[in-house]
């Protein structure tokens, strides 16, 4: 603005008003331009599920942002793996992860699965078969296997393989058939679809390594028997106990995979299980029969994706702790002696096979590298999965909320009705008490409402701010705070008028004092909101956010809208002449005709006689 000397005494009300008008128009334009015309609704208003997990660890230093970030990336993977879209995973505070799953799925089931700690296992592959995404499969038959994509037998450079550091010793593979999980599959038909966009780096490896097994029998439908009848179709040997389950398992449909996954999850570590690959490679899924757990994921001490200096390709390095190292050396030693595909081990997370690299020799020393046709994303993804097992974190379920869309919409309606009633009450009170001035207050409230709405909508798109019920509550409560600023200003103007000033100087002179009061009180309110925001989590944070936002907007509105508007209106005859409906008439202020009513209008030395 101009220097104090050239500045008119009323300031530049027009400039301020046009500024806020431009800001408003700009915000609304951006709002419609980007399509964020409505604030994003939280789970409690839109319906859906929300899971709050709290990380615990025997080692407090383990709960650090890096570990939490890995954990939340895995969680997101796990949620997306169930076929849910638009779910969000956020680290909240230091040690909490919030997973929001939108409506439209049986989210309670997912939520509860998520709340369980992820199970990462290394299991030797006993048998595997490829399943194509073909038409309806005959019951109790292996799927029409597609053989086409496999190509050459994998080699160290073109597909996933273990690069051993040293050779190890190992006993023969033990295809001991323990209790199978076949019955579990039939029992469970939960709809937790499993589809994912993540291309695992080992997908080619799976496809290619089992291509040998699948090749040549594109339409085989024979029911494999316990021992022999797998040649040409199923690679490896399916143990007798798993036979039924293995045959029945259908990895090509989401329901089929979910059933397999549930059964695999329910199995104990010492059980042999059937599992599906997490991802399809060119529409081909791999079905595995897996041995009991050889190495637990918790034995991994570190996993990272690296660009190999030798081959120039992405690979995943992992190290084991000492117990894990010896277990891993043992199992790789055994596997290395076997034929494809029984020389593979499956990295199984939550019942799904993430990757199944093969082993060419025993890996001792606890250091291993998985290489193959990874790109950076797929290598990082696999490294994340492996790191998860190494995270010294347990997740405790703090809160699981599932809100049906009906309940959500009824809560939203209630919130909106409450807001509307609150607004109407405030408007009525302002109009009844301040009349003409009340209109200024109503206009200011309207400006404030438009700004709040557009900012909330835009923040929903920009930083994922979601309006939840406490946030709605905060916005409603803030109506009062916003209106309070107007009261402070109006009362100051009226005080000036009572002291005999005419309207224009009154509006001008009231401002510095009112501004001070408004700033001090809004600062306190904002401080409360800010402290709440930084010290608390979840619901309280949503509430604090809206409260802080509206308090900040209140200052903007009072400075750039209410005050300039008052300055302009003070020039109008309606207000200036003290029209009875302006809210500024002498009668309404109680300033009486001094000649007629001199006794009461005089200011007495009222406090002189008070006791101290």
């Amino acid at each position, binding site marked *: 603005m101009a220097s104090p000397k050239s500045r008119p005494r009323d300031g530049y009300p027009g400039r301020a008003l046009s500024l806020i008008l431009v800001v408003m128009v700009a915000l609304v334009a951006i709002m419609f331009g980007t399509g964020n015309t409505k604030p994003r609704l939280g789970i409690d208003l839109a319906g859906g599920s929300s899971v709050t997990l709290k990380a615990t660890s025997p080692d407090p230093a383990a709960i650090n942002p890096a570990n939490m970030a890995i954990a939340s990336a895995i969680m997101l993977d796990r949620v997306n793996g169930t076929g849910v879209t638009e779910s969000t995973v956020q680290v909240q505070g230091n040690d909490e992860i919030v997973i929001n799953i939108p409506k439209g799925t049986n989210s309670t089931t997912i939520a509860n699965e998520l709340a369980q700690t992820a199970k990462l296992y290394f299991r030797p592959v006993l048998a595997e078969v490829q399943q194509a995404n073909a038409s309806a499969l005959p019951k109790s038959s292996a799927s029409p296997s597609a053989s086409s994509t496999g190509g050459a037998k994998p080699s160290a450079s073109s597909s996933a393989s273990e690069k051993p550091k040293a050779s190890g010793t190992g006993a023969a593979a033990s295809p001991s058939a323990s209790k199978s999980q076949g019955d579990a599959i039939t029992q469970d038909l939960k709809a937790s679809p499993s589809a994912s966009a993540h291309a695992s780096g080992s997908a080619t490896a799976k496809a290619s390594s089992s291509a040998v097994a699948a090749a040549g029998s594109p339409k085989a439908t024979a029911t494999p028997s316990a021992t022999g009848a797998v040649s040409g179709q199923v690679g490896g040997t399916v143990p007798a106990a798993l036979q039924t389950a293995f045959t029945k398992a259908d990895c090509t449909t989401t329901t089929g995979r979910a059933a397999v996954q549930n059964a695999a999850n329910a199995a104990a570590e010492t059980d042999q299980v059937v599992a599906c690959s997490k991802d399809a490679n060119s529409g081909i899924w791999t079905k595995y029969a897996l041995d009991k757990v050889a190495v637990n994921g918790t034995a991994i001490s570190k996993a990272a994706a690296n660009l190999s200096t030798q081959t120039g390709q992405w690979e995943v390095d992992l190290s084991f702790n000492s117990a894990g190292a010896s277990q891993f050396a043992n199992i790789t030693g055994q596997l290395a002696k076997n034929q494809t595909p029984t020389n593979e081990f499956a990295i199984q997370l939550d019942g799904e096979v993430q990757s199944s690299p093969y082993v060419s020799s025993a890996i001792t020393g606890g250091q291993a590298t998985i290489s193959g046709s990874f790109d950076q994303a797929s290598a990082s993804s696999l490294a994340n999965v492996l790191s998860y097992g190494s995270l010294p974190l347990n997740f405790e379920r703090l*809160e699981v909320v*599932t809100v049906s869309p009906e309940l959500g919409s009824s809560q939203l309606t209630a919130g909106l009705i409450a807001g509307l009633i609150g607004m109407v009450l405030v408007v009525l009170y302002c109009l009844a008490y301040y009349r003409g001035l009340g209109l200024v207050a109503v206009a200011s409230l309207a400006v404030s409402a438009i700004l709040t709405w557009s900012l909330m909508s835009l923040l929903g798109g920009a930083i994922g701010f979601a309006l939840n019920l406490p946030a709605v509550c905060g916005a409603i409560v803030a109506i009062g705070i916003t209106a*309070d600023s107007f009261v402070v200003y109006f*009362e100051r103007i009226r005080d000036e008028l009572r002291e005999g*000033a005419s309207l224009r100087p009154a509006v001008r002179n009231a401002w510095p004092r009112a501004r001070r009061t408004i700033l*001090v009180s809004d600062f306190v309110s904002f401080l409360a909101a800010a402290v709440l925001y930084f010290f608390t989590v979840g619901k309280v944070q949503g509430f604090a956010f809206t409260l802080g936002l509206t308090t900040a907007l209140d200052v903007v509105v009072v400075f750039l809208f209410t005050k300039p508007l008052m300055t302009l209106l003070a020039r109008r005859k309606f207000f200036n002449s003290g029209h009875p409906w302006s809210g500024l008439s002498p009668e309404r202020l*109680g300033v009486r005709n001094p000649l007629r009513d001199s006794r009461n209008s005089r200011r007495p030395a009222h*406090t002189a006689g008070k006791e101290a």
Partner: protein
Amino acid sequence: MSRFGNIGHRLYTGEVSFDFVGRRRLWTIISGVILVAAIFGLTVRGLNLGIEFKGGDIYTITKPGVTVSQAQKAANDLTGDSSSLVQTASSSNGQQILIQISSAEKVDPTKGQAALTQSLGLSQNQISTQSLSASWGHDISQKALYGLIAFMVLVTAYLAFAFEWRLAVGALVALLHDLVITVGVYALVGFEVTSGTVIGFLTILGYSLYDTVVVFDGLKAATNKLTKQNKMTYSDAANASLNSTLVRSINTSVLALLPVAALLFIGGGLLGAGVLNDISLALFIGLTAGAYSSICVATPMVAWLQEKRPEYMELARKVKQRRAAEAKAAAEGRTLEDEVPQEVTVPAPTGGPRNQPVNRTRNERRSSGGRR
């Protein structure tokens, strides 16, 4: 309305004046009784902590036609005893049934939902589940407590900087007063404490202080040059300032309460139970206490602290002397010559219709001057 407006004017000029500061003993007694009751309630009865603090599952059923007894029976079948709590609440879409099952029952929420869905014949969209670990409520209230402490330290520092430490102390005392009363009311009446309630408690912080700050702002202006005169003690000036801004305080309180009341009405009347109700109930109690405390606790507290300062003790002594002289003069039927009524007023107004030449008699002046 216009009469109310007149009251505003008469309060402003001091024509009508309530002696807030002088009745310090009364406020102390009132606040003391409420505080003792609140603390008694807290220690003896304790807070009625909701399931969020104890852990358990809440199922919300929105199917029309399901009765409480049906739901209770279904819940009893689920838990094998009758420990579950079944409530009704209405919503904009009709009636809701809330079933709370404590975590001590060890009912898996997924199985619980499935069992209730089956036994009550619900569809997937008619049941909502909330499962809370016992540490959840503890967790959130602990964080809230840290926030509370941080806020108090920060705001006291800020108020001490913006005003002075005595006012900061007054504000802090008023704040604690409001919080203890609100929590005490919860303990005494036995309202359920939920996460919404905790949010409500925390919001009282900002609001209680908002009110107090508005009052203190007037107080600071009114007592700015107080030692330059000998007609008013600090308490007098504080009281005059309170009265002149009373309309503003009432209006800000009413305007703050109106949306909260709307929330309470909707939350309590229409929804029965829920976050809206919990937040607004805590806020309503806290705001009411806040409106009272900013006028009747904070300012008298500040006046009491200020009167202990040497300069104000000196002022009080001078004012007393002067009043004694005035009273003596009044008794003898004359006025003090140095009396200039408009010399010190709070807040000092000048000009205007009130300052029109008026016909003023000695009797009138005496009567007002000598009013006790």
